[in-house]
């Protein structure tokens, strides 16, 4: 069975794909759907959902359109989730690859470094980094990347160590290829599928981290995000519950979609590893 056939037969993964496409579409077309910016006052504050035509999710504490805020928030979540994962891969993949391929002191040093970052409570470190370097999309993305790369390094190291012992690597050595060339052209391409699975799950975690930071008031002050919306509405939860409720649902849908896709990819890319008894 091909990869795509296996992936498509996984109901959960297909639900995930549909949900994610919907979220991406809303993020992309936000300016077309809503003529006003998410920061603009459009009506009285604290309007309940459907109270006024054209404002299906009501207005927030400052009279801004909640639906528009949600749509623009999707952009921030997806962007930060994706870019921070890419940066984490840029740190973790080379480090893990070098450690696994060269072994010895390189491995020892790289793994001590990784272990140190794994010991530190990662959300606390992210808070410290964003607080010190001032909240902005760049500092948030970087902070999330800095706390999420260690598992990547460990995974890549383990994969490289097992691939390194395979026969085609010996053949490449005999053919006279240099070590760096073997690592990049022969070994690393064989570790791609577990990295893809891990990356898709990391995007989900990064979105949760970004929203948690914004919730604490560490969001970019110029970007509307779901966590910020919930944080701003926290104090009025008794009177206007919908202001916190809808952004939370948006986060759950996006994170759930990515998790479902990640699991589907895992089952489709590593069929021999997919755990028994999965429905």
């Amino acid at each position, binding site marked *: 069975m091909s990869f795509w056939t296996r992936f498509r037969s996984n109901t959960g993964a297909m639900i995930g794909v549909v949900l994610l496409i919907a979220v991406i579409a809303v993020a992309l077309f936000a300016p077309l759907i809503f003529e006003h910016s998410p920061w603009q006052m459009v009506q009285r504050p604290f309007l309940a959902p459907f109270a006024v035509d054209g404002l299906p999710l009501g207005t927030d504490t400052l009279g801004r359109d909640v639906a528009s805020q949600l749509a623009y928030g999707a952009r921030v979540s997806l962007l930060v989730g994706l870019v921070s994962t890419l940066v984490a891969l840029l740190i973790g993949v080379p480090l893990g690859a070098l450690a696994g391929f060269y072994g010895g002191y390189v491995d020892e040093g790289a793994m001590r470094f990784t272990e140190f970052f794994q010991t*530190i409570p990662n959300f606390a*470190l992210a808070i410290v980094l964003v607080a010190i370097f001032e909240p902005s999309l760049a500092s948030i993305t970087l902070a999330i990347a800095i706390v999420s790369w260690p598992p990547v390094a460990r995974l890549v190291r383990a994969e490289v160590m097992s691939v390194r012992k395979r026969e085609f690597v010996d053949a490449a050595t005999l053919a006279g290829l240099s070590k760096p060339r073997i690592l990049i052209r022969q070994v690393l391409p064989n570790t791609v599928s577990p990295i893809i699975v891990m990356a898709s799950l990391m995007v989900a975690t990064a979105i949760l981290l970004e929203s948690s930071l914004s919730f604490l008031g560490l969001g970019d002050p110029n970007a509307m995000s779901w966590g910020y919306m919930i944080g701003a509405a926290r104090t009025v939860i008794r009177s206007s519950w919908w202001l916190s409720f809808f952004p939370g649902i948006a986060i759950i849908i996006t994170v759930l979609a990515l998790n479902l896709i990640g699991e589907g990819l895992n089952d489709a890319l590593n069929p021999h590893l997919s755990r*028994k008894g999965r429905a």
Partner: protein
Amino acid sequence: MSVFAIIAARLAKAALTLLCIAVLNFCLLHAAPGDPAVVLAGEAGAADEQMIEQLRERFGLDQPFGVQLWKYVSGVAQLDLGYSFRQGAPVIELIADRLPATLLLTGAAFVISLVCGIALGVAAAARVGKPQDSLLTTFALLFYATPLYWAALMAVLVFSVWLGWLPGFGYETVGAGYTGMARIIDIAQHLVLPALTLGLFFMAVYMRMTRASMLEVSTADFVKTARAKGLSDAVIRRRHILRNAILPVVTLAGLQAGQLIGGAVLTETVFAWPGIGRLMFESLAARDYNTILGVFLVSAAMVIAFNIVTDIVYRLVDPRIGARA
């Protein structure tokens, strides 16, 4: 190697890690944009030129980098985490004040998530493929995608605001003057929602892991042997499968203690729970860096201590684990 040698080795490693974190803290303080003296003063001494000058002298900010680093690190070694100008007290005192509440919250959340997670995972694995299993797996998937702080807010809304069953705010009833048993019950009631919502995410993690681990172990040869002996399913599950399946779950739980403490910042913020997480949140708005970094260091120390304890318990429980440091 004896248990004591292992403990000694682990403690030495822990000390080294904490030293690295102290150095990291120091570098971060200096990397913050602006004059370190102004940064240290936070919002407290905003425009007071004289106070800034005093600070510069007091912390030796006019001295070479190496000297400053040595002063900071040796200060941390003596439990001097600096002074919070915002709160007008040494950081270590602020943290010591708030630590018991955080230990209570994270401890309760840890126990709840581990016990419920394992129980539900075993239940799901026993009914694999049946509707009950699908239902449990779906719930785990949902909780796994739910932001901690949002679950906390919704719990306050439903159980405190709408139903009025449980308090959704604070550590105990202010001004009630309860003592003895009445006070313990009062605190326990305040603990229910924060501990449950903090534990929910981790419960989902442990449940998924237990389920997978149970299914994996159930294909092992010794399980077939047990079945061939004619043992009942319940006995096989409890005595043969669970005891082996639980090991990776407990390992993971030990490693995730750090995330639990990170999550406590969010939970304590929502519930106004007077722990070190709430202290960190309050310090964010005030840009009180000494306190933020102090809480960071102490939470890392908590994680390290917790990992050492789990490691030792683990070795005592399972003699198969080699006595390697």
